[in-house]
């Protein structure tokens, strides 16, 4: 099977709230946009049955319903959609190559909104009973366990708050906590409420050893971390709330990640690579919500549009010219401006074009071209650098003698 190649302005990786908003902004700016999603459009929000804090829906809205509305809206702007897994992202010239198993998409800008997934304990038989008794969302699955006994793993905010939510449905909620008696990772208010809740029972100093059952989960064997004793707990369901992992495996050697694997960006959603932006839960940030993903997506889509406009300047003014001098400077610096006047005379004398790039507001074009820090001068012939020099220490153009 031969690999196809397709060109796009923007490729968005991930079809959750952040990705769909990015695609909406890019599509609406009339950029040729592709959104790639590995399974189904909607992302993590589809696992929440009631979203009460997304403004505009005062009665609350089902996560899947809300994501369907997002879906309908971004497709209106002519965005292409592919449902497949992205295998790699690599630099190709001044563009990026996003590869799926059948196609290489060449994109001027890439927006990463790959979100995350719940962390697993890694205990024996965990995969076997995933969605067959092991669940990650109380809001989604609580009703299924009405009048039944469930076990919650974890003691953070999510574990304790979701655990308390489960007590409204379940007859008994047992909680396995790795810490000593009375200690939890959750906030103090939640901790006290939980300790007072009659339906909640705690098993301290424990972690999961293994899962047992037939077609569905029947028993979780906990292990006392101090004594090694195995404590079998017969349950109807088990909820894991031991954290969240970002989907950043393919970006490990490409983008700067924080210690927990989330993508580091600035407030403009720019990552450590020029032309790659990140939006939504995958980004290193304090609050992960549909509303914050939407904000990220809007900024990423807009910044991608601006970046592409800048790249076009590069192509039209520099790379497509027979020969041109390129002066990178900071317009707010007096000396840089004096140099500009001298350079204008110099270029006229030599009869060669001068392209002036002001790096005061954005340093991006210089970075894409690989020019030296401002003030600096490069000489291009047919899209290639022939000579370049910093003008910081020595502001003379003698290095071009014999070249132009």
């Amino acid at each position: 099977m031969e690999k196809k190649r397709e060109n796009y302005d923007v490729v968005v990786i991930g079809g959750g709230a952040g990705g769909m908003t990015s695609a909406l902004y890019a599509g609406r700016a009339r950029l040729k946009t592709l959104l790639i999603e590995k399974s189904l459009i909607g992302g993590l929000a589809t696992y929440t049955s009631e979203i009460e804090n997304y403004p505009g829906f005062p009665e609350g809205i089902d996560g899947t319903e809300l994501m369907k509305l997002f879906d309908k809206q971004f497709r209106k702007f002519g965005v292409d959609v592919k449902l497949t897994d992205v295998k790699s992202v690599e630099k190709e010239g001044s563009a990026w190559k996003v590869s799926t198993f059948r196609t290489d998409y060449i994109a001027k800008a890439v927006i990463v909104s790959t979100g995350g997934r719940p962390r697993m304990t890694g205990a024996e038989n965990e995969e076997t009973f995933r969605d067959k008794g092991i669940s990650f969302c109380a809001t989604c699955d609580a009703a299924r366990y009405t009048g039944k006994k469930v076990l919650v793993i974890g003691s953070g905010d999510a574990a304790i708050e979701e655990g308390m939510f489960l007590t409204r449905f379940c007859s008994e909620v047992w909680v396995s906590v790795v810490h000593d008696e009375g200690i939890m990772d959750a906030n103090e208010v939640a901790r006290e409420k939980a300790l007072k809740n009659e339906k909640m029972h705690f098993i301290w100093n424990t972690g999961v050893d293994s899962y047992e059952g037939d077609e569905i989960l029947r028993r979780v064997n906990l292990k006392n971390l101090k004594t090694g004793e195995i404590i079998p707990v017969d349950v109807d369901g088990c909820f894991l709330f031991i954290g969240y992992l970002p989907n950043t495996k393919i970006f490990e050697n490409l983008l700067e990640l924080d210690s927990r694997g989330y993508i580091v960006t600035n407030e403009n959603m720019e990552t450590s690579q020029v032309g790659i932006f990140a939006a939504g839960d995958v980004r290193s940030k304090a609050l992960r919500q549909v509303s914050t993903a939407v904000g990220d997506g809007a900024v990423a889509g807009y910044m991608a549009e601006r970046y592409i406009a800048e790249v076009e300047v590069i192509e039209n003014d520099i790379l497509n010219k027979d020969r041109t001098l390129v002066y990178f400077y900071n317009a707010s610096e007096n000396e840089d401006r004096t140099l500009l006047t001298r350079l204008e005379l110099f270029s006229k004398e030599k009869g060669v074009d001068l392209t002036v790039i002001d790096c005061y507001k954005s340093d991006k074009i210089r970075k894409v071209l690989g020019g030296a820090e401002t003030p600096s001068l490069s000489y291009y012939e047919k899209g290639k650098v022939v000579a370049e020099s910093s003008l910081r220490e020595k502001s003379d153009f003698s290095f071009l003698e014999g070249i132009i």
Partner: protein
Amino acid sequence: MAEQYLDCLGEACPVPLVKTQNAIKDMAVGDVLVVGIDHTCAMKNVPDWARGQGYNVEIEEVGEGEWEVVIEKTC
């Protein structure tokens, strides 16, 4: 590396999945199966099963309510 088309248009679950499983069984590693479906439930269980096997999967919407699930047998 052969490419083969499996017509499941008009078929309801679980027929597309069973047909897909049978077709893939006889294929060699590296071969590609394209399954045509128009039943939304097959659009979920066919790719889910194939991903679970570790195969490469891509879904293309070829028309209104009509999809092609492209599966590469990788192991």
